[in-house]
């Protein structure tokens, strides 16, 4: 496989604010690469630089080896951008919107008509194709918003939070379409702050916050960064320092995140187990109001990497 997208040391500053702070990653052909991070993490700014809307302060972006800075027109022909906000002409029908965007990319005639028909069916809008889109529900508009980015059959598709604020049915449709286009050999960069989507869709993903990529890899690789084992979350009336001291005395128990009255700990798979860990803590005089044991997920990793929850 060859890299369809290469991002090298990309950086964007707005005055004193560093929105994107030297990120690097690449995406292979046919891969769905996720950008997982909270609002304001720098996802949209990164996508804006990748598609040529913003000029980077530093760094480079290559699409199939072509630099966006040196040859933006050539790169833009290969990109399909689906912006976070629904960007459609509400006076026009779904078919007219699709035909317009196809026309921008030089498509026309029977080829365009067939492609429009195909996309309308794919996003489930074939029955409402001639209706002005101002009558559409939010989910229908989102589906059309996605289709507009695909009409010219681009090599690389940039999806910026395409499922924000829609019903589960429309979300399901969008996720299915994204899977289908990737299965068709297209490459996808997918930004989201929904963990479930990232876990379900992405072959690889990067966790981004404050403009920096904190970690990247497959979902499995990322989860192992927490360590192999179970996550033990305890809540009660205890100071962070007391719990930290207690944890160091228990075999197979590792701290992930410890605050006053709340702590997340990893019970190592190779250690004596959860019961032994809890007994170790109780024996040091600690009591808890609530105890949760679960397998670690990306949310936990995000918490470990950033000290805050993804949806905050």
């Amino acid at each position, binding site marked *: 496989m060859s890299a369809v997208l290469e991002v090298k040391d990309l950086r964007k500053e707005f005055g004193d604010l560093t929105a994107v702070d030297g990120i690097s990653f690449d995406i292979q052909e046919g891969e769905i690469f996720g950008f997982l991070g909270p609002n304001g993490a720098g996802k949209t*700014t990164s996508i*804006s630089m990748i*598609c*040529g*809307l*913003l*000029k980077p302060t530093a760094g480079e972006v290559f699409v199939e080896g072509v630099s966006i800075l040196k040859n933006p*027109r050539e790169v*833009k*022909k290969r*990109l399909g*951008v689906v*912006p976070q*906000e*629904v*960007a*459609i*002409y509400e*006076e*026009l029908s779904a078919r*007219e919107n699709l035909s*317009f*965007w196809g*026309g*921008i*990319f030089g498509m026309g005639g029977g080829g365009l008509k067939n492609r429009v028909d195909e996309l309308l069916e794919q996003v489930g809008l074939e029955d409402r194709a001639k209706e*002005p889109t101002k009558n559409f529900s939010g989910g229908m508009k989102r589906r059309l918003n996605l289709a*507009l980015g695909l009409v010219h059959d681009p090599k690389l598709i940039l999806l910026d939070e395409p499922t924000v604020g829609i019903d589960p049915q429309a979300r399901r449709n969008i996720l299915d379409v994204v899977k289908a286009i990737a299965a068709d050999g297209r490459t996808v960069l997918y930004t989201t702050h929904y963990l479930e989507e990232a876990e379900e869709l992405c072959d690889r993903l990067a966790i981004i916050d404050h403009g920096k990529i904190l970690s990247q890899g497959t979902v499995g690789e990322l989860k192992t960064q927490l360590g192999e084992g179970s996550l033990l979350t305890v809540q009660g009336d205890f100071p962070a320092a007391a719990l930290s001291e207690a944890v160091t005395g228990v075999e197979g128990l590792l701290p992930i995140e410890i605050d006053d009255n709340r702590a997340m700990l990893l019970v190592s798979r190779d250690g004596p187990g959860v019961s032994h860990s809890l007994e170790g803590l109780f024996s040091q005089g600690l009591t808890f109001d609530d105890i949760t044991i679960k397998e670690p997920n990306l949310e936990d990793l995000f918490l470990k990497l950033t000290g805050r929850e993804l949806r905050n």
Partner: protein
Amino acid sequence: MWVLIRKDLLRRWRSPLSTIVMIIFPLFMSLAIGSISGGSGGGSEFPRIKVLLQNNDKDGFLSNAIMGSAGQGENQEYLDLVEVGDEGTEMMNEGKASAMIVLPENFTAKVFNREPVEILVVRNPAEGIKPEIVVQGADVVATYLDQGARLLGEELGIIQVMMESENIPASAKVGAVAAGITTKIDGVEKYLFPPLVEIGSVKEDGAEEDSGGGFNVFGYILIMTTVMALLFVATRSMGDIFEEQNNGMLKRQLSTPMGIGMIVGAKTVFGVVFGVIVMMVLGAIGLVLGWISPPVDLLAAVLLGISFSLAACGFLALVLSLVRTEKQAGILGWLVIMGMSAIGGSMMPIDNMPAPLQAAARYTINFWAVDGYTRLVYSGEGLNDIMGNIVRLLIIGAVTIMVAQALLVRRFREVS
């Protein structure tokens, strides 16, 4: 570019409310102002028109009758008549009157002898509507004289003898003449004759003019307000780029191979095309309603429309390029349109304005459009006559579009 223009035309077609408002506005204004000005006969609505009367047929019965009747009745409300001699030409040269009516030597004799004769109306070229009113008024007089001379030549001869006689004519003789006149009028009122008496209209500089279409106050106001409406069309067209910025469409278009220069250029072309369409629709409605006559030179009318739309789009694009937001664009655009329309003759006839404002009007694009269309529709002028207007508007359009394009491209290069 055609894809972008077609898209915007389709959007206007699908969502026609704003377009309908832009079309209704000039029609409504024409109807409202026209009714107030012309319908109720409120003399105070119109300024008095200063007209010089030069009678070169001093002893003629008809010329004296015309001179005497000119200042009677309703004419007193509208006309400020001054009888002049040879100094009339000099007064016209100095722009001291809107028009001068010249009755030629032997006018009466020629009319009675049924020889062709011409009443000359000298117009002040610096004024638009007032001289036109004089021409139309004189045309009515000429029509009456023409018909009367053809029909009642014999009776007029008898009347002239009676008038010149020192004796009071016998009642029977007067009755016979009156009966003859009545019978003739009743018999031929439905028939038309080629004119014996014609109106010749010249500008103060001596250039002869075609007669053009009949003046209609509704049509005149329609021209004025259509020009203003086209400015709103231009604002709407160019301001659309801000709307597209707000709803994310601009950003989305810029993520395609299309550059911002192409997008701004397409908006300008769309504005011109849309403006010409609106102008043609309003012109057609004006024709159907009988408010305006078809211009003698249709090509000139179309070229003037294109050049004005171009100037309007360029000018408004320049104004919009100086603001940051759609709201600011709306406010500033509105102020500029109102200002230019007030000064430039879209709200009131230029002739009615004080001299300083009349001079300032020439610096607005409205003036050149209103002036051009008034001359095309009411003076029967053609492309050559209004070429100056077209060239001025094209130059303004080209310059403002280039500057605005540069500013807007810089503005929207990074839209996030």
